[in-house]
């Protein structure tokens, strides 16, 4: 075990630190959803143009060809300067990288990594949430095309999407897990309609996506026909804990902001507040070390459900504590924390609900499977 930087890693850290000092992130994050989205996207673009994003991705697809450790270092350094959190689409990129043809990878990955193209997940449906294999959207072969029909829901950042990765049933006669395929769908294609879903915090971050006779060329198929379920599992596993997802940066930012707020409104002296902030600080270290330990693992696998449950617990505790003890109704900061708190309730639902994660761990890691 050796957690110090190698000489190359130390050089990398120094280089990034210098770059960040010369290119500091803007201080004020917009409060509205579209503004925040543009803010995160602009930051990612700036990182990318500077050569400090897509670190662990192959150079031929727009990456830097480094390893997961460099992603961790970059996260640490961005957390240190309070940079905006990374734009959350790299897990879809991982799916393209693992299952895509050479042509698809060359065509799509550079835009995805530079945040020029916004990629979103078209997985869930009204009757296929936790039971994702129940997807009813269909894709039928028609000559050199597939014709897709169905409805997707809970698509994060759906309104901003340029591209969707859509799960659709290509073989209605196959066993239900085997009959699903994954497609790359352009949001501007004819027959694609989006409708925003207004969330509890007022944000329109999620969307419904309707697919009516959407014709996509054959090469829009990702992987092989019937490989959709494997692609979906891999995608959500990457969503759950990879270092390039950048949640540590976001949570570090929250904690710093909260400590600052507690100091300015005088509540830092309250023993209950001190205990809660100390607890969150401890939990962030737990999360940081756990993610670092998991980067040694080759692929996310079923254990990524541990990461997701841990992350959710830490995030929801921090946000719950913020609205109950640090920011208070009637104060100007309360609204922002309330919005974050309400959105934080989604953390145990999206990307596979906490109950699904527990079942995955019980069955696949602990061997409590008797069927």
């Amino acid at each position, binding site marked *: *075990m*050796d957690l110090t930087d190698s000489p190359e890693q130390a050089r990398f850290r120094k280089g990034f630190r210098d770059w960040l000092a010369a290119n500091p992130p803007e201080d004020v994050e917009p409060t509205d959803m579209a503004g925040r989205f543009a803010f995160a996207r602009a930051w990612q673009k700036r990182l990318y143009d500077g050569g400090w994003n897509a670190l662990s991705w192959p150079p031929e697809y727009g990456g830097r060809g480094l390893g997961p450790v460099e992603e961790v270092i970059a996260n640490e350094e961005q957390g240190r300067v309070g940079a905006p959190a990374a734009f959350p689409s790299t897990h879809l990129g991982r799916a393209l990288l693992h299952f895509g043809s050479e042509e698809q990878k060359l065509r799509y990955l550079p835009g995805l990594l530079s945040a020029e193209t916004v990629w979103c997940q078209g997985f869930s449906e009204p009757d296929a949430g936790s039971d994702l294999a129940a997807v009813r959207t269909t894709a039928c072969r028609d000559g050199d095309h597939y014709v897709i029909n169905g409805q997707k829901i809970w698509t994060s950042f759906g309104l901003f999407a340029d591209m969707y990765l859509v799960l659709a049933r290509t073989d209605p006669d196959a066993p239900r897990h085997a009959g699903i395929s994954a497609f790359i769908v352009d949001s501007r294609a004819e027959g694609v309609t989006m409708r925003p879903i207004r969330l509890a915090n007022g944000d329109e971050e999620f969307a419904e996506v309707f697919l009516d006779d959407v014709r996509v060329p054959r090469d829009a198929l990702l992987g092989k026909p019937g490989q959709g379920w494997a692609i979906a599992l891999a995608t959500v596993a990457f969503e759950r804990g990879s270092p390039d997802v950048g949640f540590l940066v976001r949570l570090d930012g929250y904690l710093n902001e909260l400590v600052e707020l507690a100091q300015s409104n005088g509540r830092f002296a309250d023993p209950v507040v001190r205990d809660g902030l100390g607890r969150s*600080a401890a939990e962030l270290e737990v999360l940081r070390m756990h993610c670092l330990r998991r*980067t040694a693992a080759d692929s996310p696998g079923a254990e990524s459900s541990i990461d997701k449950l841990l992350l959710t617990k830490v995030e929801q505790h921090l946000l719950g504590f913020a609205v109950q003890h640090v920011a208070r109704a009637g104060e100007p900061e309360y609204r922002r924390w309330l919005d974050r708190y309400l959105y934080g309730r989604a953390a145990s639902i999206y990307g596979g609900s906490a109950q699904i994660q*527990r079942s995955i761990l019980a069955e696949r890691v*602990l061997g409590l499977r008797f069927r």
Partner: protein
Amino acid sequence: MSFELSDEERSLQQLVAQFAADEFGGQRAQSGPTEWKAQWDHMTDLGLTTILVPEAHGGSGGTLVDACLIAEELARADAWVPFAGGAVLGVMALRSSDSAAALRALAEAAGGALFSLVTDSQLQLSDSPGEVGFDWREGAIPVALTGTDARPLESAGTTADGSSDPFHPLGRLRHAEPLPPPFWTQAQRQVRVAGWVALSAWLNGLAGAALRDAVDFAKQRHQFGVPIGSFQAVQHLCADMLVDVESSRSVTLGAAWFAANADLVRAERLAAAAKAWSSSAAVRVCETSIQVHGGIGITWEHIAHRRLRTALQFSRALGGATDMHAVLADQGEEIVVKAHGSH
């Protein structure tokens, strides 16, 4: 930068696992810690009790990561040797002083003598050295952090009280003279850091054993004609235990590394985080394991309550979660200053 264990670390882990299974496995766990000395001497021969004694003083010169791997494997096998108390806290205390007496004592520790850290009645290292020998065994030599020194003591009237935790009794000490409080020198703060980390590692081993047994039981025990582990209500309890165990291991091993490879403030931050998290997690896991076991889990004969007793005692020792949160909150101002300073 990698969490991956080296070949040496892995073989140490295997050695200890094998040793612990041979020495503490099976029915012997019922008899408790009356015969700890034979196992302790065996561990000294293997270089385990002396892992943190520097080579120059006749020890194995290992790292805190090594000590954590040993602690975890011993605890996983429900071992009743005072490794955390003696080989980590006792030895680290002696290492914090360069007095002639401490150096002599370190040489004795290299030969297998057991030194037991003196704490107050709350098992804390508070402003006045107290009258409790932590992880005490008959024949142990108490060592107190006092002033800038770590002083081995000739204390009178010591008795081991194992009523609350028979695996890890406490010594009741009477000092000949009152002792001044520790000054909390850097070296003394390192004792605390090592203690937080090693106690966490022991707690993680206990929790790992509690999880393992709960899962095994859930696979074997049938109700309603099926294994109880087929019910989601039981599965999800086990999954929560797994999250607790694995996250505790991550932060503890990380803290063990940074204890020796980062500045003291960061070392304290991580060690306190490890102790806070592992303490709460281990108690939770040991309680949940009893729940999964049902009635059998609350019987005297079952080992579950012994693990819970140790989890409770170790989680409080040198400070529980609340105390650790206070350590981190005290660093709070620095967090913000750092974030601003780099703009």
